[in-house]
C-alpha cells in the first residue's frame, strides 16, 4: 500500500469527527425542514389505516 501508516491514522482521527458533524447537520436539517412536516405526519398516521388490501 502506498499510503503511509501515519497518513491513514491522521485521516482516521480527524475525518471521522468532521464527517460526524456534517452528517448530523444534514440529517437534522432534512428531518426538521418545514416543507416535509406534512409528509411525515401523513406517513406516521397512514399506517394506522388498516384497509388490508393493496391499492390497485
Amino acid at each position, binding site marked *: 500500500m502506498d499510503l503511509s501508516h501515519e497518513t491513514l*491514522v491522521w485521516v*482516521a*482521527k480527524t475525518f*471521522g469527527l468532521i*464527517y*460526524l458533524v456534517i*452528517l*448530523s447537520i444534514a*440529517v*437534522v436539517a*432534512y*428531518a*426538521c425542514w418545514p416543507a416535509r*412536516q406534512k*409528509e*411525515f*405526519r*401523513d*406517513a*406516521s*398516521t*397512514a*399506517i*394506522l*389505516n*388498516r*384497509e*388490508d*388490501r*393493496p*391499492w*390497485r
Partner: protein
Amino acid sequence: MDVISNLTMDERRRALLILLVMALVGLTFAAAGHGDPIAVHGALVLVLSLALAFPVMGHLYDPEPSIERFNAYYDDPSKVGVILTFVWAAFAMFVGDWVAWLMVEPTWTTGSAWSSFGRLRPVHTTGVIFGFGGNGLIATSFYVMQRTCRVRLPDQLSPWFVLIGYNLFCILAVTGYLLGITQSKEYAEPEWYADLWLVIVWVTYFVLYMRTLARREEPHIYVANWYYMAFILVVAMLHIVNNLAVPVSFLSAKSHSLFSGVQDALTEWWYGHNAVAFFLTAGFLGMMYYYLPIRAGRPIFSYRLSIISFWGITFMYMWVGSHHLHHTALPQWVQTLGMTFSLVLLVPSWGSAANALLTLNGAWHKVRDDATLRFMMIAAVFYGLTTFEGSFMAIRSVNALSHYTDWTVGHVHAGALGWVAMITFGALYASIPWLWKRERMYSPALVEVHFWLALSGTAVYVFALWNAGIIQGLMWRTYTENGNLAYTFLDSVVAMRPYYIARALGGLLYLLGALAGCLNLYLTIRFAAPATEAASRKPLRDGLDDAATQPAE
C-alpha cells in the same frame, strides 16, 4: 397443497428447476467430498431439495391461481416464517438452557463429541440470532413492506427462495457445528459454502425489497422500511468482508480466514458489534416502528426523531466495534475512537427508546390490559437499558473489569431476551391473528403467562450474571496486603456456581414462556374463531380519537 397451487405455473416450474439444481449440487458434494464432513452437508442439501421438489412436481400442472389474488397481500411466506420463528425459538432456547446447565454440571451430556459444550454453544447463538431473530425479521418484513407500500409482493417465488434459502443456511450452520464444521469466528461460524449461499439468498432479499418499494402506492417510504433496508444492506457488507477466506479445496468444508491476528480481530469485532447493530437492533427497530404504533393505535410520537435516530445509528455503530478489544494488542487510538463513538451512540439509541415509550403516552391503559403491547413496551425499556449499559461497558476502565467476564454475557442477554425477543414476540402476537384472519390469539391468558415468564426469566438471568461478572472481575484483580494476587482462577470458577444455577433457572423460565407461545400459535391456527369481516377492516385509530378527546394519562 394450497401453498404450491397458489404459485403460478411458471413459478412452479422455476421452483422445480432451482430445487433440482440444488439437489444436483448436493449430490456432487455428497459423492465427491468423500472422507470430508462436507459430504454430509451435500447429502443433507440433496435430501431437503428432493423433499421439496416432490410436492412441487405433484402440483406442477395444477390450474393457474385465480386472478383474485392480486386483490390481497401475499402472506403465505410470512405465515410459514412465523411458524419457523417459533420453532427456532423453542429449539435454540432449549439448547441455550442445556449449555447453561453444562456450566453447572459439566457431565450432563451424552459424552459424544456433538454434545460437548463447545459445539452446542454456537448452535445456541446461531439458532437464536439467525434462526429465531432472522426468521422473525424476514416474516415481519414481508408483512410490513406490503402494508406500508400498499402493494402486493412483486412475485410469489422470490419470497419463498429467501425464506427457505435462509433456513437452509441456518440448518447448514447448526448441523455443521455438531459435525465439527466451523470457522471459529464468533457469530460468523458457518463455513465458506454456507456463507456463499447466504450471499445469494441475501441479494435476492435485497432485490425483492427494492422491487416492492419501486412499485409502492404510498409516496413516502415509511421509516420502518428504512430500518429493514439498513439491516439487509449492512448485514450483507459485514458478512462478505468478515467471511473472506480461502477454502482448503472445493471439496473440503474447511477454509482459512484471509486476515490474521490484529487485522482479523478488528474485522471480526467490527462484524460482531455491527451484527448487534444491524441484525439485532436496526431490523428490530423496523419491527417496532410498525407494530408498536399499530398495536397502540397511535402514530409514532416523533417521526422526525425516528429519522434522526436512524442516521445516527447507521453512521455511528460502525465505529464502535473496537471497544471489544480494549487493552489488547490493538493500537490504542483505535480503542479510543471506538470508546468515543460508543458514548455518542447513546444519543440516537435513547432517541429511539424514548420515541417508543412516548408513543404509548395516552395508551397506558392498553399497556395494562394487553400483554402483546406490554411485550413491546418492555422491549423498548430493555432497549434503553441495554444501550446505556453497552456505552458504559465501552469505557476503557469499566471494560478492564467487565471484559472476559459473565457481565458481557449478561449484557448480551439483557439485549437478546429483553429487547430482541420481547419485541419479536410482541410483533408476532400482533400479526398472527391478522395473518390467519382470526379474531384474536386463541388464548390471551397464555400470552399473559408467556409475558410474565419472559419478564421474570430475563430479570433472574440478567441479575445473576451481573453479579457473577462483577464478582469474577473483582476476584481476578484483588491483591493481598503483600501485593500478591488474592485469588486463583479456580477460586473464581467455584464462586460462580450459585450464579450459574440461577442463570440456568432464569433461562428455563424464558424457555417455558416460548413453549407457551408455540402452543398458543398451534391453538390459534387450528381452533381460534375466524375474524369477522367488519373486525378485520376496522381502522385502528381509536386510540388517536381517545387522545383527542381526553387528556393524556
